[in-house]
């Protein structure tokens, strides 16, 4: 089982809608206005939109074949479940060893806890891919 969100940077137009949809999806309320007005700081997007001059794209966890984050986690809080690398929020202590080793910079720092893309909790297609207007984001699952 492999799950990956790949960004075709030739198609990415830098609209950052992936971040917006991701924020809302992972917010408490699930409502765009409430999420942005009251919850944004607590639930930042799991996407890392990046830009360098005219090149841009979004990077999320690539679910590496042999994930370095699992080896580096000081609490043993990271594991692979159903093809997706998962951080156990209860056990994470925010030591940032995962941030230190992720080659894509895909693990973000929250309030004392690390978090990352969860492929929308195993939904068939992640919300960012569904809503990418120029179809730059592609979901690969096999």
């Amino acid at each position, binding site marked *: 089982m*492999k799950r*990956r969100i*790949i960004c075709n*940077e030739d198609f990415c137009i830098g609209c950052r809608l992936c971040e917006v949809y991701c924020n809302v999806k992972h917010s408490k309320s699930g409502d765009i206005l409430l999420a942005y007005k009251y919850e944004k700081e607590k639930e930042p997007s799991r996407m*890392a939109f*990046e*830009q*360098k001059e005219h*090149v*841009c*794209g979004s*990077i999320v966890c*690539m*679910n*590496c*074949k*042999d994930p*370095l984050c*699992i*080896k*580096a986690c*000081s*609490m*043993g809080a990271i594991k692979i479940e159903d093809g997706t690398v998962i951080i156990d929020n209860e056990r994470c*202590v925010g*030591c*940032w*060893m*995962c*941030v*230190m*080793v*992720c*080659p*894509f*910079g895909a*693990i*973000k*720092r929250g309030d004392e806890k690390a978090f990352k893309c969860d492929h929308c909790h195993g939904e068939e297609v992640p919300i960012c891919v569904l809503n990418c207007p120029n179809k730059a984001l592609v979901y690969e699952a096999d």
Partner: protein
Amino acid sequence: MKYVIIGNGTAAVGAIEGIRYNDKKSEIILISKENCISYSKPQLYKMLNQENLKSIYYRNEEFYINNNVSTILGKTLKSVDFSKKLLVLEDDSIKYDRLLIATGTKANVPKLKGFDGEIYSFTNIDEALKLKQSLVNKDKIAVLGGGLIGAKLSEYLHKMGKEVILIVSSKGVLSSLGDEKISEILNKEILEKGVNLLLSRNILGAKKIDSKIELKLDKETIKCDAIVSCKGVKPEISPFEKTELSINQGIIVDEHMRTNVDEVFAAGDVTEMYNSIEDAYCNIPILPNAYGGGYSAGINMSGGNSKIETVYPMNSLKIFDVKMITMGLLSPTEKDEVMSLFDPEKKVYRKLVIRGEKLIGAALLGDIDRAGILNNIIRSNLDVSTIKEELLNNKINFYVLPRDMREVIVKSYTEGIK
């Protein structure tokens, strides 16, 4: 096949998971002198103000049962006869087919002239609990050594309301990292937060006066209630000292975690591995190496083929409010190019060490996000001639890397292609 693992730390856990990846059935016996399940060494500080050992467990209690591992806990290995594949414990002996040595490290506790009282250390649960119990009626604590353990322990003791005197022989804390700026920033932080930091001090001796301790330094004499030694750690090699095992500071292993003795592997803090940046065998006692080495050893012990490409030091730590991540070599030689920036207002410091257009070391202080991108550049030996300015000055960003490089990185990590 009968696998025996000596030790119960991160490397041992990695090895169990590595062995079970290939071999679900064979017997695994784990022997440890510590009488508890595997816990996270970097989180040991939490034992001082938390009751529950569970909060620092590295795996859950069912781990050993789920992986069908027989544990012999609280028993010390006395000696080994490699020719007979025999391990001698205090009151028992055990045969092995394949052996993993993952005994970790032990504290380096100096002798203080004229002092016969207790010197505490802080490298395992027993030591931590012993210190915790003694702290009940002690308020003024002298911590010897400004390395990682000493600095972090000082912070914790201070937060518990103790008066802490941190005594360091060099010019700054964490001086072993080889970066004066980092030491300078941390010195300032520790002082500002209220720890009494004494730098460039040699300890001449100590003596007990009633319930107090008088600690004699070269520049002054201080009074305290307890002394904790954090003068580093050394590999726990004592059961193997008189054997044919190849040992320098630690046990020498190759890239497959094999020792010089047939069917004997070693992993974790007890080992020395080849460090490509230093071009030498080094003891690098950090958790990612322990798990990664243990896992590779487990794969190789059970008939697979796993090779450790490169090891070098790296660490993520927070001392009071200063967060930092360091990777690779930070003390450059003459042939190296050093780039750095420092913003005292924002408390941000970044340093890159470059040798022959390859990044060999990096430090991020304050802003540590996406540090792994730099770490991968070091690990993969990528050319940074066109991007080094940007790596130093801008937000670290995957798209700073040229497209062909990015595509190779994605492929190599997702498909495991080198």
